């Protein structure tokens, strides 16, 4: 019989003995990337166990989604993974399109891909800056944000907002690309290539950086699959699984791009995977801009969006596999909208990754997972 008050369960970490100490990391902490609390059991500086405690940013997204029509839920989707808002909206919109049998015109698909890959670059830039900052390389943070500013300007011209766009709609996108969009993006990408060389010279191959990230936070391929990892965490462990390649959606199957895979599943591998993903995203954007057809930016969704049936739609976000399980029962509001967050799943790996590491390594490990608490807690 389910109990109405929560008295189940054992305490999160076993009772400490002798030299062991419980240390709290977070929820207010500059390196936990949001309101994440990690309970560390340490013996001196060495971590014996780490358990994440989450829920500080829980905003009842799934409950609210049961009380809103589909179009009104899209802004809430933005705010889950707020650093990659387009890929947060996309699975939801895709799920609704499946349930409503709405066709998305080709031009809209191309626009979605371009914007999503630009979003991937923006998210990885922020990850790069924050990751380097956590390890002590302060200037990298400023460089990354300088590039990101240019991207946010492009997003603002396109969608009206810098970060939380409310741009995707059931059946397409809210508005077409503005005149000069392609020039802006090409100029940005050309500039980014030079800047990426700069970033590589700054960090990759830097002996101090390498000693802080090589061999830290190792995840084996079997562990990664068993723990449901996805995105750079899974690919850093050597598993070449990318939703865009394995189960292609939208028009991704028309583009040539690679899936970078890391050598050894440590923090350094995940870093290398994300750095390479910059180049792959640039390839996709350039191909998409070259091939984008003329046409409508919006399909023909029904006037009353009555959802019937259930579906699970997945998208490759910068953090991993984002999924939305949408259940309709004939009404305009979803009956159930579940958001599968990759970072929620990756937090389970904190314990296995941190065993035997130092507290300073914990910072590198958390940074390498690229956590956004908005997505974890919803």
């Amino acid at each position: 019989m389910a109990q109405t008050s929560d008295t189940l369960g054992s305490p999160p970490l076993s009772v400490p003995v002798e030299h062991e100490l419980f240390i709290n990391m977070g929820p207010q902490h500059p390196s936990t990337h949001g309101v994440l609390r990690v309970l560390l059991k340490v013996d001196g500086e060495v971590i014996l166990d780490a358990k994440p405690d989450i829920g500080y940013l829980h905003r009842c997204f799934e409950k609210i989604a049961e009380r809103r029509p589909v179009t009104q839920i899209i802004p809430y989707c933005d705010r889950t993974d707020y650093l990659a808002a387009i890929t947060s909206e996309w699975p939801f919109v895709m799920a609704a399109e499946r349930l409503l049998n709405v066709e998305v015109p080709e031009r809209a698909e191309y626009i979605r891909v371009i914007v999503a890959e630009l979003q991937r670059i923006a998210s990885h830039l922020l990850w790069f800056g924050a990751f380097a900052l956590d390890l002590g390389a302060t200037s990298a943070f400023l460089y990354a944000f300088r590039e990101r500013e240019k991207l946010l300007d492009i997003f603002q011209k396109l969608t009206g907002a810098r970060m939380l766009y409310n741009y995707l709609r059931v059946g397409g996108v809210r508005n077409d690309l503005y005149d000069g969009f392609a020039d802006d993006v090409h100029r940005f990408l050309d500039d980014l290539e030079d800047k990426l060389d700069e970033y590589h010279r700054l960090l990759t191959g830097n002996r101090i950086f390498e000693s802080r990230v090589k061999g830290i936070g190792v995840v084996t391929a079997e562990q990664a699959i068993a723990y449901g990892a996805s995105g750079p965490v899974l690919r850093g462990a050597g598993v070449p699984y990318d939703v865009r390649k394995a189960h292609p959606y939208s028009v991704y199957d028309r583009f040539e791009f690679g899936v970078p895979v890391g050598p050894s599943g440590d923090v350094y591998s995940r870093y290398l995977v994300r750095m390479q993903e910059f180049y792959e995203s640039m390839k996709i954007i350039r191909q998409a801009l070259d091939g984008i057809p003329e046409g409508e930016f919006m399909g023909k969704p029904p006037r009353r969006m009555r959802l019937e049936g259930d579906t699970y739609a997945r998208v490759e976000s910068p953090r991993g596999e984002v999924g939305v399980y949408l259940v309709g029962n004939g009404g305009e509001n979803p009956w159930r909208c579940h958001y599968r967050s990759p970072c929620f799943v990756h937090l389970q790996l904190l314990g296995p990754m941190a065993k035997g590491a130092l507290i300073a390594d914990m910072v590198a490990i958390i940074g390498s997972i690229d956590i956004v608490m908005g997505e974890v807690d919803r």
Partner: protein
Amino acid sequence: MAEREDATRPEQAESAAEVFPPELQPVVERLRSYFPDVPLRMRADGWLEATIDRSLSPRFFETLKEARGLEFDYLSDLTAVDFEEKGFQVVYHLLSLGPRADRVQRKLAVKIQVPRDDPRTASVVHVWPTANFHEREVYDLMGVVFEGHPDLRRILLREDWVGHPLRKDYVDWRPPRPRVVSRTSAGR
């Protein structure tokens, strides 16, 4: 293009749900050889769907993971839906990662119906460790108890929270917080 993630099939009638695409035929046959009584159907979005009774869990899931020809080693999502009088439906979405190309197309959704007055089912943490947090979340927000879970406690809400908010019949009984309005307002 049956393997596209976003395939929609507007023409699919109810009876067509029993027709399985050729890449999934071996999986269907293998599943039926182990569990002949489990109803299987194709969902419109390209996922195979199995509905099982909770007594089959966790043996069903262990077979899904270990058996040759099935090898569903990746649990993508575990969630629950509240269907009011019909109870809760726990939904698992399983994939098969692996180097051989034929594994990529295996997408299976498993649904377990549990009654509302006894919402419990077996945990699958020992099959897929990733289920740990998912089951905790379902317990926290829906109140479904997963037997065999090593550490079943709330994950998103405070540990002293009462009730399971994602249920359709959840009522927030917390008393309203007193609002204090200062008599000397800060604007002056």
